[in-house]
């Protein structure tokens, strides 16, 4: 009986530690923003690859879809978490850029084949990346 109670308590504690209400630590926020910054850079490198005509169509469509899903996952995690008490401005700034990147990638999913228009997207994403970099540096 004791063992069962202990196991249930441990399971509940584990669940509680995974709960979305848990405030994000400064380190966790930094780690998520670094991931987002990396995804922005990945997207720009990929767009350059596509503009040079070096990617196949299924690859282009598939890769932009995966990039979009990944940034969507980070955005969701950030939205569901409580901001760290000592880094709320950085959290807000970072979150707005993650949302902007997610929106940009979502749009790109429909028009990755239009190579001529991608230069503008690259500029936009480079701007998002710079702002994310600032948010990371300020943490």
């Amino acid at each position: 009986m004791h063992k069962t109670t202990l196991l249930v308590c441990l399971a509940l504690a584990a669940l509680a530690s995974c709960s979305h209400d848990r405030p994000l630590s400064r380190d966790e926020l930094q780690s998520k923003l670094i991931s987002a910054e990396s995804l922005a850079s990945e997207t720009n490198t990929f767009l350059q690859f596509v503009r040079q005509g070096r990617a196949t169509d299924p690859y282009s469509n598939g890769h932009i879809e995966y990039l979009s899903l990944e940034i969507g996952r980070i955005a969701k995690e950030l939205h569901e978490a409580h901001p760290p008490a000592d880094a709320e401005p950085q959290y807000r700034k970072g979150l707005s850029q993650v949302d902007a990147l997610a929106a940009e990638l979502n749009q790109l999913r429909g028009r990755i084949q239009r190579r001529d228009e991608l230069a503008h997207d690259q500029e936009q994403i480079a701007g998002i990346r710079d702002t994310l970099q600032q948010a990371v540096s300020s943490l």
Partner: protein
Amino acid sequence: MKKILGITLGIMTALGGFVDLGQIVFTTQAGALFSYELMWAILLGAVAIIVYMEMCGRVAVVAKEPVFAVVRTRLGFSLGLATLIASNLLNLITCAAEIGGVAIVLHLLTGWPEKLVLIGATVTFSAMVLLFRFQWIERTLGLSGLMMIVFAVSAVVLHPDWGQLARGLLPSVSQPDAKHVLLYGYFAVGIFSAMLMEYEVHFYSSGAIEEDWTTKDLGENFMVASLGSVLGSLLTVGLLVLGALVFRPRGIFPQILSTTTMAGAFPFAEKALIMALLGTLACISGAAVETALSGAYNVCQFFNLKWGKNQPIKSVPVFTATWLAMFLFALIIALTGVRPLQLVNISIVFGMVIMPLTYYPILRIAADKNVMGNHVNSKFDTIIGTVFLVLITAAALAAIPLMIVTHSGQP
């Protein structure tokens, strides 16, 4: 001449089958974070896998005992059973990760829906294992994996700094802060573990028995284990170089498989991209089949049941049912939508934790004169095997704490 051809084919097959999803991901990420600083972990992993793969092959040939029969006799039933359960859970997770990876690559190659290709690939693998003889499965997937050479060619074309690469053979940390050092430790353990994944030796030793190797084939065993692993390790070095040259300068920490495959074709055009995708597909397909079969080998060898891919299906019912179940459960896990790279992280870390329980019994039996006779370990073999066992155990103890403090290697 026929013998030389056989050995060459064996080496090429070992080379093509050397790399799997875990190695592709961990090594490129390590290159992106630490440039060439973890070259030593690849070297260490390469020597360790050569030592233990050769030992497993020799034990299988001389004692006619594959890995899990050795585990049962040397660890005893209870600890052996715990090792079997842990190993097969690990095989299942790895198989699910590899199948998930296969679906991603097929989606990138064809544009077909991922869930559909996931199911299609699993059915194809099952049919392949059901219909083909062991040698055909091994060679088809192993030789197709040679297309991964495009990654090594890309790495060379991008002009790595060879001096810096050589300096990476000595452990050093460029930034002394705690977070950096812990991440460095996590990736060192990850690379070491990915190169020593247990299913590789389970599959190799069972394969030696499937292919009816005798003591006359021990030379071939040594050549295949050593040269195949050396060449496979060079491919792994190529992945590290690509991480350092393609991702690191751009501040990219590759977290999705499609980004990693792009690195393989980075200096080239469409055809190289297709080749990189096909090479990746072959390697991770090979790993998916090996992990499923490994699960079946382990169960049958532990319980002393009849096994063998080349046996008629009706005469090996448990063996057949087990590998089929491995594919089925791996498919179910992959269909839940869990990300393959997340599964790979788990499999590599937990693989490291249980690794000593597989390698220790192998070392014991290979050094046992009563069982091995003239083919017993030399003193050198036993010393080097013991040194690596100590390293494996140290890495096993460090793996979970490092995973927790680094949030599974997040920079």
